[in-house]
């Protein structure tokens, strides 16, 4: 019996890497110049104000950053805060993704839970933090609960919207081929949710580290927020800026080196 071996139809070429790398390099250069301009503006402003105790220049902050790093104080506090950020982030993403997926794929559950979600979204972060400390005490659990409670509603909303556009045709195909629930979750649902999850992770990280600093500021005896509180009481503005700047640099590095590449990878298959 003769079988067809010829290919009908013409394959369209996949987009090449070379065409994507040039704009990426240009974007990186633009970001670098933009940051240098920001530092320059800061230096000019500090020069014009001429008040090193209230408005220190970048050149005055740099030695503080170096000495605090070499003494080990800054890396220690940074590590504690990053640990809190990591735990809170993981818990918030896990709980928010599960709730968002459930609400996005079950209309009745969504109808019942949506008003709760709206309420949760509108509770000020400060109220959640204060209530957590009042209810659970000034401990690590209360700190983590406060951060997670602030972040979960946002993750839930983003994942819910992503889950609403899960392709029912692919789900039917998977059912016809009797794919297991685990395989369907891993190979069908999560890839479709990936852009929403990546977006939630990026916005979530940006929100969580700020809330962690507030939580530490209000009720912890360690971490970057605690140190900022300490130097705030001592009216030591250069050290407040140095600690805040160190943490901002680390979070920006995570954003650029981890979160943005992850989000691009999550959206790659949608490229034309």
């Amino acid at each position, binding site marked *: *019996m003769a*079988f*067809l*071996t*010829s*290919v*009908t*139809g*013409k*394959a*369209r*070429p*996949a987009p090449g890497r070379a065409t994507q790398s040039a704009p990426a390099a240009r974007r990186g250069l633009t970001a670098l110049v933009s940051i240098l301009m920001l530092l320059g503006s800061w230096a000019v402003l500090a020069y014009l104000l001429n008040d090193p105790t209230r408005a220190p220049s970048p050149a005055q902050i740099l030695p503080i950053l170096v000495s605090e790093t070499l003494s080990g104080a800054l890396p220690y506090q940074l590590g504690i805060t990053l640990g809190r950020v990591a735990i809170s982030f993981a818990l918030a993403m896990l709980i928010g993704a599960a709730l968002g997926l459930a609400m996005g794929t079950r209309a009745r559950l969504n109808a019942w839970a949506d008003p709760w979600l709206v309420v949760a979204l509108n509770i000020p972060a400060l109220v959640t933090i204060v209530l957590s400390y009042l209810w659970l005490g000034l401990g690590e659990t209360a700190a983590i609960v406060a951060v997670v409670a602030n972040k979960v509603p946002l993750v839930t909303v983003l994942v819910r919207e992503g889950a609403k556009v899960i392709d029912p*045709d*692919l789900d*039917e*195909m*998977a*059912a*016809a*081929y*009797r*794919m297991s629930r685990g*395989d369907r979750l891993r*190979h*069908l649902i999560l*890839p479709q949710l*990936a852009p929403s999850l990546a977006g939630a992770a990026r916005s979530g990280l940006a929100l969580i580290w700020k809330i962690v600093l507030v939580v530490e500021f209000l009720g912890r005896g360690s971490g970057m927020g605690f140190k900022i509180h300490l130097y705030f009481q001592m009216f030591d503005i250069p050290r407040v800026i140095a600690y805040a700047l160190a943490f901002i640099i680390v979070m920006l590095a995570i954003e650029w080196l981890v979160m943005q590449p992850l989000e691009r990878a999550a959206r790659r*298959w*949608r*490229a*034309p």
Partner: protein
Amino acid sequence: MIRAEIQSKRFGAKQVLGPIALEVARGEVLAIEGPSGVGKSTLLRILAGLDDDFDGRVEATGRMSMVFQEPRLMPWRNVGDNIRLTTRASAAAIGQMLTRVGLAGHENTYPRALSLGQARRVALARAFVVPPDILILDEPFTSLDPDRVADLLMLTRELIDSHRPATIFVTHSRHEARQLADRRAELTGQPARLVCKSGDMPQMQTA
């Protein structure tokens, strides 16, 4: 073998399918023709086990494969993964089947780089890579030009002849039905019933 005795299928107050009895043995191809909206896809979803909200009974023995109107490939996975993840077929079997459908070496190609005709061949490869006992074809040649339809009809015929599954083929086209099927029936009326056009159809058994 697949056997169905459907008393009715409703969407709310509207009865879409009336009493329908069908039986397809291994190696047989039954074509079901009918106009758009008559309930062909509803009937296929019931036969494929995708809809159990109906009055009646479907008995299907063995492994079932389905080819849909659209190729329904996962765009984030390459061709090889699309077949492997749904069927658990080995890399060697996938390579052989892709060669057989005319797509040798396309394991690492992503669906967005395929033409519609190629994507439909991948869907066929997915259906046959692990030999099915039951095959359900839901208008798998729509939106293709006549030459491509002829090629795919020939390929599908060859694959069916090789593996001899019990095949139910839904189509708008009388020509496609005649090319592929041993027996033909038409789904017609409201609620829809199956009317024999060639060959014998089983009678509905009364309880």
